[in-house]
């Protein structure tokens, strides 16, 4: 990595655009492997109240990167998952319970505030000499045969052999690479907020499946929980505008008071549900990670975990290429990234889509099928365990970091 004081040009082997959790993880993983990395993380501070259920593989990767030790205390283990059919329909599914100890795990995952995770990643990023952070916005991207140059808001440029696009669903880098997306809009909106509760949650996350969409409560440390409430837009607007006391009653109703009385905390987020997948996850000089590559509805804790697997995969492939004296941005290397991520992203997007559609459908056979599926999960141990294992850590995509092996 060199900095040229006179022209203000910065160069690195890899440049990561976007300072969210996926971009930060990629930058930290690359720099931990000794790769000179520049992270262009934008100038706007993030105001994210959401939480993420980090699945076991993600936690293993963060542990290997030296990040987990500084945020573990602020994460709550998810030891049990419960799905409750609250649709009130004729074909109601039975309640399904998943327990992590059934597949030999302490927990399916750990729920953590995105802000806490980002702060831990930033602290680690600052300790890595191979990583240079730039708090400026990328305003232009130029992709050439031999490298990528990004123009910053100050007029400076950053260039590298490979650009990792972690710049979100409206990715500037993806657009510059000419990669299109397939988009699917859902009729629902997700409302997110946190609350404290009078009863213990017993490390159990519960999804109440209503006809409008799932209402999910996920443990946070102590007697606190986070909520992802998927409803129709009008209902989201109504809930969003409710006074705290009224929202408390609403939550107690939807959760059947299983965690007692609740007190919602300030800060609510509203996210229209959509699924969007890039037609390719890479082209020469560019790889897409996180929401630049795939947006999926916040159901089943898959979105950011996919993004962290993207980050681990790109770091592994880049380090391997550099150790072989290869150019990490050339098409034969970036193609490997696309191939490595395609199956994982496709299966998860499809699973979330099917689950969401089955909830929305008023068509009786689909309700019956969904009920039968959940009944099978409830009754058939091996099937339930297979679904749990696949949900926690996919068989198709296991980068070294996700097995807890450091790259360095």
């Amino acid at each position, binding site marked *: 990595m060199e900095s040229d004081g006179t022209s203000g040009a910065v160069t690195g082997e890899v440049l990561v655009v976007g300072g969210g959790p996926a971009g930060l993880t990629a930058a930290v993983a690359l720099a931990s*492997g*000794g790769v000179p990395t520049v992270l262009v993380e934008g100038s706007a501070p993030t105001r994210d109240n959401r939480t993420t259920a980090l699945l076991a593989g993600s936690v293993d990767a963060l542990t290997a990167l030296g990040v987990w030790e500084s945020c573990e205390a602020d994460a709550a283990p998810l030891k049990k998952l419960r799905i409750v059919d609250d649709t009130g329909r004729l074909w109601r599914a039975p309640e399904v319970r998943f327990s992590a100890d059934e597949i030999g795990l302490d927990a399916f995952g750990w729920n953590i505030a995105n802000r806490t995770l980002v702060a831990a990643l930033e602290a680690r990023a600052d300790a890595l000499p191979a990583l240079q952070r730039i708090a400026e916005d990328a305003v232009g991207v130029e992709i050439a045969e*031999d490298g990528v140059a990004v123009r910053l808001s100050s007029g400076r440029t950053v260039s590298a052999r490979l650009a990792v696009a972690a710049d979100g669903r409206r990715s500037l880098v993806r657009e510059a690479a000419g990669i299109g997306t397939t988009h699917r809009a859902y009729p629902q909106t997700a409302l997110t907020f946190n609350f404290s509760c009078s009863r213990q949650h017993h490390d159990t996350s519960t999804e109440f499946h209503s006809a409008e969409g799932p209402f999910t409560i996920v443990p946070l440390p102590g007697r606190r929980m986070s909520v992802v409430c998927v409803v129709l837009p009008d209902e989201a607007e109504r809930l969003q505008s409710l006074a705290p006391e009224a929202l408390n009653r609403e939550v107690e109703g939807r959760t059947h008071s299983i965690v007692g009385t609740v007190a919602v905390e300030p800060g609510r987020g509203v996210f229209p549900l959509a699924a969007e997948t890039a037609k390719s996850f890479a082209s020469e000089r560019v790889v897409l990670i996180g929401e630049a590559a795939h947006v999926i509805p916040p159901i089943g804790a898959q979105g950011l975990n996919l993004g962290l697997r993207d980050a681990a995969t790109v770091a592994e492939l880049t380090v391997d290429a550099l*150790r072989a004296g290869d150019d990490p941005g050339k098409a034969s290397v970036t193609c490997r990234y696309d191939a490595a991520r395609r199956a994982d992203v496709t299966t998860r997007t499809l699973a979330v889509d099917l689950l969401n559609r089955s909830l929305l459908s008023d068509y009786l056979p689909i309700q019956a099928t969904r009920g039968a599926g959940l009944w099978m999960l409830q009754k058939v141990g091996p099937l339930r365990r297979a679904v749990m294992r696949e949900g926690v850590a996919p068989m198709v995509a296991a980068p070294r970091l996700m097995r807890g092996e450091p790259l360095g």
Partner: protein
Amino acid sequence: MSIDLNRASTVDQAEIARFSAIAETWWDPRGKMAALHKFNPVRVGWVRDQACRRFGRDTKRIDTLAGLRILDIGCGGGILSEPLARLGAEMVGADPATTNIEVAKLHAEKSGLAIDYRNTTAEDLAEAGEKFDVVLAMEVVEHVADVPLFVSICAGMVKPGGLMIAATLNRTLKSFAMAIVGAEYVLRWLPIGTHQWDKFVTPAELETAMSEAGLVVSAESGVLYNPLADRWGLGRDMDVNYMMAADKPD
């Protein structure tokens, strides 16, 4: 490394165009040199590992060859020199063919790598008193007129405590069948007439030449093609392609 996307040059544009066309054939992984591109990662990895062993380096570092001065004899378009330069080596690439050197220079500039390419021979470099930590003679031994003389010239350029590595083709019935009939006539990997089987060198002959030149053979490996995976790998069978590393005592 630095990439200048709007580079200006004083070099004759027509010459550049001519060499660019050739460079594209050299560097196209699916073009005329496809076989070499497939073969290349195996020899890059072996050269890296042998150099790391000899100089006590960590193979996992991405700049593991930093500070080592390496000579690549018969560098062609630079397919071996570039990866080694990326790993940190101070590369000198030598090739008697002017076209190869121009192609290599052009591509290194495009890759943002500083490689010292010279249109010269091993003899002239040795005469000029050049010394290297590592001298590579990869796929050249089978093309020279006098193997013992060539090896002694190469060995003379290795610094004490350094390393020489050669890769070549064994003179066996199998290599005749595979390298000449197979690679040149059947698979058309290489232009017909690229190799003359009677100039191939057995491991024993190479080892003798290296020992007589004051080197001690420290490692050897066969390089095998797996037609099902369409991939090259290391193996014990040295009947066709093989590599040999020899240390120069301190």
